[in-house]
């Protein structure tokens, strides 16, 4: 299976180019800082008293979401910047010439690389996320309500972004493709926050900013679904207010719908198909 050959080659590239090592160092730093922060949260007195268990669960929920956002950002940046060079870089350097002169389809090469990057990003999210849950549990006793769904959605978010990165890498230079993909990821997140504020304030037109951006690029919608899976629903119910209705960037007010999930998968397939089409027509 040539697809698997390219998937394995992509993983080997990530390992040998020390991307894995760089990600591991960043992750350990982030996990270490979060362990320190969560430990401080439990042991420090606020206004002369320790936090109640309800307060602790709410704050742990938010902080966990914040740290997971950091992890998802590392995964997104890592895979988006890997996705660019893997296609555009090889075409620019000439490495693609010898490969594509073999009896293989360009779409096979693209799918193989995509699969390798998905495994890379998904593996990173699973390992780093699990380590983070253990840290939070060990320090505060909090365990996310639905960790598997949450991590799966974050892995899917990484897959969405790297698919976009691959699409751009068939069109523009390697560096530009990574920058544009990450830029759009950030812009969609901000649009999601703006939309959340709109929902919190009951302003439908502002809320639509978030909804539209979440359809155009599903990363933020997936992130909000993942946050919902990480946070403690009972603790949130006790507090209510605009924050829980979406006005706070590190809390989510609703789980992901199946329709949105189906759209995300369709979106990913469409973008990957478009990338394959563009690559097929491209002169080397």
């Amino acid at each position, binding site marked *: 299976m*040539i697809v698997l050959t390219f998937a394995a*080659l992509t993983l080997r590239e990530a390992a040998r180019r020390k991307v894995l090592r760089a990600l591991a160092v960043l992750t350990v730093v982030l996990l270490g800082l979060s362990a320190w922060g969560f430990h401080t949260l439990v042991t420090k007195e606020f206004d002369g008293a320790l936090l109640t268990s309800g307060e602790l669960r709410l704050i742990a929920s938010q902080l966990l979401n914040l740290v997971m956002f950091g992890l998802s950002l590392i995964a997104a940046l890592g895979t988006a910047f890997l996705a660019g060079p893997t296609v555009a870089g090889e075409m620019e*350097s*000439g490495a693609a010439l*010898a490969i594509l002169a073999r009896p293989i389809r360009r779409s096979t090469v693209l799918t193989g690389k995509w699969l390798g990057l998905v495994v890379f990003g998904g593996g990173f999210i699973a390992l780093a996320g699990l380590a983070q849950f253990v840290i939070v549990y060990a320090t505060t006793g909090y365990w996310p309500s639905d960790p598997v769904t949450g991590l799966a959605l974050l892995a899917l978010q990484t897959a969405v972004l790297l698919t976009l990165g691959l699409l751009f890498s068939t069109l523009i230079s390697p560096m530009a493709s990574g920058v544009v993909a990450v830029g759009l990821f950030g812009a969609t997140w901000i649009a999601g926050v703006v939309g959340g504020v709109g929902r919190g304030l009951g302003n439908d037109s502002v809320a639509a900013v978030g909804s539209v951006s979440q359809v155009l690029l599903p990363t933020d919608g997936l992130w909000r679904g993942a946050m919902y899976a990480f946070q403690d629903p009972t603790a949130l119910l006790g507090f209510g207010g605009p924050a829980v209705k979406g006005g706070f960037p590190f809390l989510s007010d609703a789980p992901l719908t199946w329709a949105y999930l189906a759209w995300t998968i369709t979106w990913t397939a469409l973008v990957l198909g478009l990338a394959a089409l563009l690559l097929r027509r491209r*002169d*080397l």
Partner: protein
Amino acid sequence: MTNAVWTSGLRKRYRKRTAVDGVSFSVARGEVLGLLGPNGAGKTTVIKMMLGLVRPDAGEVMLLGRPVTDPRARAKVGYLPELFRYQPWLTAKEVLGLHVRLAGADVPERERHDTLGLVGLAERAGDRVGGFSKGMQQRLGLAVALVARPEFVVLDEPTSALDPVGRADVRDILLSLKDRGVAVLLNSHLIGEVERVCDRVVVLDRGRVAASGTLAELLGGRELRLRLEKVTAEAEERLRRAGPLSRDGDLYTVADLEGDLIPDLVADLVELGARVHSVEPGRVSLEDRLLDILGSER
């Protein structure tokens, strides 16, 4: 004889510039064809269209009996691109292993190692390509082109980064491919290289075929250059009878003269009183012929 590659009416435009304009030629199985032409003549574009790497605007390519749009056409093709670069994080041995897998070939480890040995990289098989010099990468590229037992090898400037020893090695490799009946398309600026190994030559200029044919057809017959003194009218007449004569000072050149007529001619000239300083049989060099073709095109 069937063709390794057959192209007809290839045309390619990049925005307003026409890179290739109606190029048709073929390489027969077992034949070594040289592709010559100045920079920007469209040689690399033709090669890339021939391998399905660039889509022609018009024209047709049949590669080893299949249309080039079918990836299987490339199964028995070895290609060394002009812009060669191989995955720097892989070792030389791994690069060959990857290409053998992609070609769908069944080449045992021993044979792969021998291919690396053939290009002088046997000692560096386990080293990462990232640490290779440009010349070594080009040698690796040759090994990549040869490893999957190709029936048609395309070498685009295979000696651009090589030292004289490396160039001689490439020449030997080309001759051994020719002996084994492997078709070769060689694009090289080193005309001497082309002249020594190619059966036929296609000259491209500004995207068109300016000339094509066997070396004998392109270069014509042999010629004789003589440096003479005291040439009498009779001696000059004798020279004219031998073949078309041209003169530059004391250098006389007789064109289209068969080699076995030379001793008689020299003996006659001496008898007719001419003093013979040098006799140099030869023929028009490919370089001169190429400059001539390109000059008349402009």
